[in-house]
């Protein structure tokens, strides 16, 4: 039994350095992305993460066209494109009557079209696939450093802005009434969203990194009843999906990014049925109600 476990769970990491790197990258990504995703869910912006993941594409493509497959260039480009889209969408929401989700949709589509044009005008399809889906098994030192730095910056920033950000999600008018500068926290938070998408980029690609951000966060609501509990649950689910996905991809020789997100998705489906906070089965097996 122990032998079996070792063979399937530990051996790949013990024997191969690239697997260890990939694991560290996934754990760091989970640390940063999961709480960001949770705040996106709580602020009813679940689809904004998806929009932003498309929005970073043209920036990454410009980086690629200038410097080839260079992580710093592509990350910087992606970051700039993401910040521009978030900024324009934020301004449009603030100064017109377009709602936030609609203005994000408008600007990310524009951005995505530019990105696809850039990639197809001079790159091959293989490059596009790499941009979209990444390869966690090819994570190098630079990528690892980027992922770890972003996770650190994210956690520190969230620790600082936690109180106003939560209050702004809950009761924005109150925060404004007491002089709490709601939009500052919102913008800082959007910056974190972009940073985490860009950091997940080399490992998972632009499309898959949003999966590690959103799926564990959405799941966490089904497992915990407090914000603290949800933060912990989201991280644990993301970390498990990362590790499990790497092993799955190693053993069955499939691309690692989709494997990780697939596991997170399966965990979500299972959670819908068995999770204690509103899962279907606990509801069916419900205990008798209490006295009034």
């Amino acid at each position, binding site marked *: 039994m122990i032998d079996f476990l070792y063979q399937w769970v530990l051996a790949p990491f013990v024997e191969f350095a690239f697997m260890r790197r990939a694991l560290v990258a996934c754990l760091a990504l989970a640390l940063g992305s999961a709480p960001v995703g949770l705040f996106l869910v709580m602020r009813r912006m679940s689809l904004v993460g998806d929009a932003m993941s498309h929005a970073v594409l043209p920036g990454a493509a410009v980086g690629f066209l200038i410097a080839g497959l260079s992580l710093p260039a592509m990350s910087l480009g992606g970051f700039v494109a993401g910040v521009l889209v978030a900024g324009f969408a934020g301004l449009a929401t603030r100064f017109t009557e377009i709602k936030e989700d609609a203005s994000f949709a408008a600007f990310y589509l524009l951005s995505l079209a530019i990105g696809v044009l850039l990639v197809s005008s001079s790159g091959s399809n293989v490059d596009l696939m790499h941009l979209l889906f990444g390869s966690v098994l090819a994570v190098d030192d630079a990528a690892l450093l980027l992922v770890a730095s972003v996770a650190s910056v994210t956690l520190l920033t969230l620790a600082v802005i936690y109180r106003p950000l*939560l209050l702004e999600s809950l009761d924005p008018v109150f925060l404004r009434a007491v002089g709490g500068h709601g939009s500052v926290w919102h913008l800082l938070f959007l910056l974190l969203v972009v940073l985490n998408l860009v950091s997940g980029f080399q490992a998972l690609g632009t499309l898959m990194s949003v999966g590690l951000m959103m799926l564990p966060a959405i799941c966490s609501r089904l497992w915990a009843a407090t*914000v603290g509990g949800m933060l912990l649950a989201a991280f644990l689910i993301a970390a498990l999906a990362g590790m499990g996905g790497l092993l799955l991809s190693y053993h069955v020789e499939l691309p690692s990014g989709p494997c990780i997100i697939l596991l997170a998705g399966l965990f979500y489906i299972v959670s819908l049925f068995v999770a204690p906070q509103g899962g279907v089965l606990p509801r069916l097996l419900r205990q008798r109600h209490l006295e009034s």
Partner: protein
Amino acid sequence: MIRLENLTVSYRRHPAVHHVSGSFADGQATAIFGPNGAGKSTLLKAIMGALKPDAGRVLMRGVARRDLAYLPQQSEIDRSLPVSVIDLVSSGHWQRSGLFGKVGRNDDDASWNALVTVGLEDFATRPIAALSSGQFQRVLFARILVQDAPLILLDEPFNAVDAATTADLLALVERWKAEGRTVIAVLHDEQQVREHFPQTLLMAREVIAWGDTAEVLTADKLRRASDTAAHWSANAPVCRVDGVTQ
């Protein structure tokens, strides 16, 4: 303490509050009364600084932003978030604790006492999603108790609230009056206004009358308010009052 000078606030050029001037009586309870669409909530939001005036201004003397407690309409709060009753009440400490400040044992006591005052101490650890709208209104009043502010703004505080809860919450308003706090409330019930609010601002986008409640809520003034409301036009010409047009 609060004076409005020629205040105009509009949505897409249509004024919701139109050239309103006057002062709120210090340390007294004033009701803002008028038909639907009269700009009552808009005026409250302009006072607390959430809406920018098109013209005119709100002068606040002797009160800072931190001295203001505001009761939002319930629809403006996202009750689906997993936040407990006591945590929501404790957010009333924001003005003193700010971003990082500690919420200490004294503050916790204050939150707890406020919950006891509104009769919800047994609900302290329940999620806010589990409360009825009347119970939730009690929680929001508890937060105002925690804020301990000299100026209290209430936006339709008794909407969707049953008679017993309304009576309990009105008792709190009476207590604030006795403590010399300034209370400004948007209300829809004429009887409540007459019984608990000595001052009334009767408005229909502009001021119809403002002063002692008994003199403001007369039959002809109330009729004037609803007549004015009946004549709001979708194709109004540009307003030319004292050169503030663009």
